[in-house]
């Protein structure tokens, strides 16, 4: 199948690959997907508690090229945004930017979920929203 130039670019030069310290109170971690489904995304953000600006974002993804590109793009987009602005990012924005075909839409959905999961985790740590404690996959 043919990939768009932007997907290929993100695949070849992924932005912001890596990990942040998940124990840091200012770091929110989102881990979504499952190995059995062929996609797992880990998205982490370091958020300034006073300005609520996402100062740093890192990702690691197990998945196809479109999944890697979606999460790479997500890290680029959330950096410098406030938590509220980042929550407004929709999967359809990612689909449009990367020209994803219909069979790859789930990759963009996963990226949106990862953003939301990372922010929930940060909010939970900050005591803002206790009921989202399970938004991240937990080691049981």
């Amino acid at each position: 199948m043919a990939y768009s130039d932007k997907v290929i670019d993100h695949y070849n030069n992924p932005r912001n690959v890596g990990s942040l310290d998940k124990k840091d109170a200012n770091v929110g971690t989102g881990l979504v997907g499952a190995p059995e489904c062929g996609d797992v995304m880990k998205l982490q953000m370091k958020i300034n508690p006073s300005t609520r600006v996402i100062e740093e974002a890192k990702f690691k993804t197990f998945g196809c090229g479109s999944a890697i590109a979606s999460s790479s793009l997500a890290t680029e987009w959330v950096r410098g945004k406030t938590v509220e602005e980042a929550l407004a990012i929709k999967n359809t924005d990612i689909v449009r930017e990367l020209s994803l075909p219909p069979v790859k839409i789930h990759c963009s959905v996963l990226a949106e979920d990862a953003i939301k999961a990372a922010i929930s985790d940060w909010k939970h740590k900050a005591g803002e929203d206790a009921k989202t404690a399970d938004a991240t996959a937990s080691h049981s």
Partner: protein
Amino acid sequence: MAIKLPIYFDNHATTPVDPRVVDAMLPYFNDKFGNAASRNHAFGWAAEEAVENARAQVAQLIGATPKEIVFTSGATESDNLAIKGVAEMYREKGNHIITQVTEHKAVLDTCKRLEKEGFEVTYLPVEKDGRINLDDLRRAITPKTILITIMYANNEIGVVQPVAEIGKIAKEKGVFFHSDGVQAVGKIPVDVQKDGIDLLSISAHKLYGPKGVGALYVRRKNPRVQLTAIIDGGGHERGMRSGTLNVTGIVGFGKACELCRVEMTEETAKLRALRDRLKESIMSKLDETFINGSMEHRLPHNINISFAYVEGESLLMGINDVAVSSGSACTSATLEPSYVLKALGVGEDLAHTSIRFGLGRFNTAEEVDYVASRVVETVSRLRELSPLYEMAKEGMDLSKMNWKTA
């Protein structure tokens, strides 16, 4: 020698046509264009002679007699003709068919259709190594069983079934034995007498011949197999397969079979050495790689490896100047990972990470080295990108994670 890109390592999907095969075919596109069924002029006679010569070449490759070869459009048609043809012809005798779960869809879907028409089908499981258990087979046979259809070698994992033993059991029980021989014929010795095969499907384009032509071997004695035709018409191929013969394709098919027969010993040794070189170069440099299916009972030119923590399609994207296939759901039309790997008990997580390498006649050691280095480099890079690899390295048990799916 400089390597020409892209490199073709997908010889289970199809093989390039050998130039000697093309040469043999060309006259039959030009001066010798006759219809093999034209009995009253030289054009027809030349075509008929060419077809009969090819029939003998195909027969010789598998230890059959020429009259037992029925030309078809390919192995899918051969599988359909064998299974539906026996089912319909022997319906009075019984309605039970035995097959197994890693068959090609041409067999599985044909069996499924027959189930809708009142037949009963047993799908034998396979062991971890990809082979059926012969005791399972014995137990599955009933007085109603008319056909066992088990492939010679699998198209994804190259695992060779215990065909001669199956042939023996079938004969003992008086049940016909059909085998889809597409991946094996021309690659390893296949002998319908020694293997006790009553019906054998063959495809030309998997053995360096042209696409659009194949054959079904139909045993004529001990026992004689009769078939109900599925294509009616002019009564070609002794009534078993009507339709004007694809003379050009058949000539190429025959030549391809002859080349395979003459060169098999040498070619098998060469391909096994290349395959082992590929396997060693990759697996000695990467941890957590797993071979799918038996190494002992395997086609010499196949290897199927799972690269844990690296999704197959993203690996293919990274080695885009190499043609291989993946068991990843992302590369299939169904969005399900390989049913063959699942049948072996390979977890879905590992099924997504599998790559099939199929070597062929025209591959070289330089190509093997290039592919191995590209695979190692890409897997290493993608593992740096993989949260699963990181978690596994931290000592987490990924199978015990409570994954949240989207």
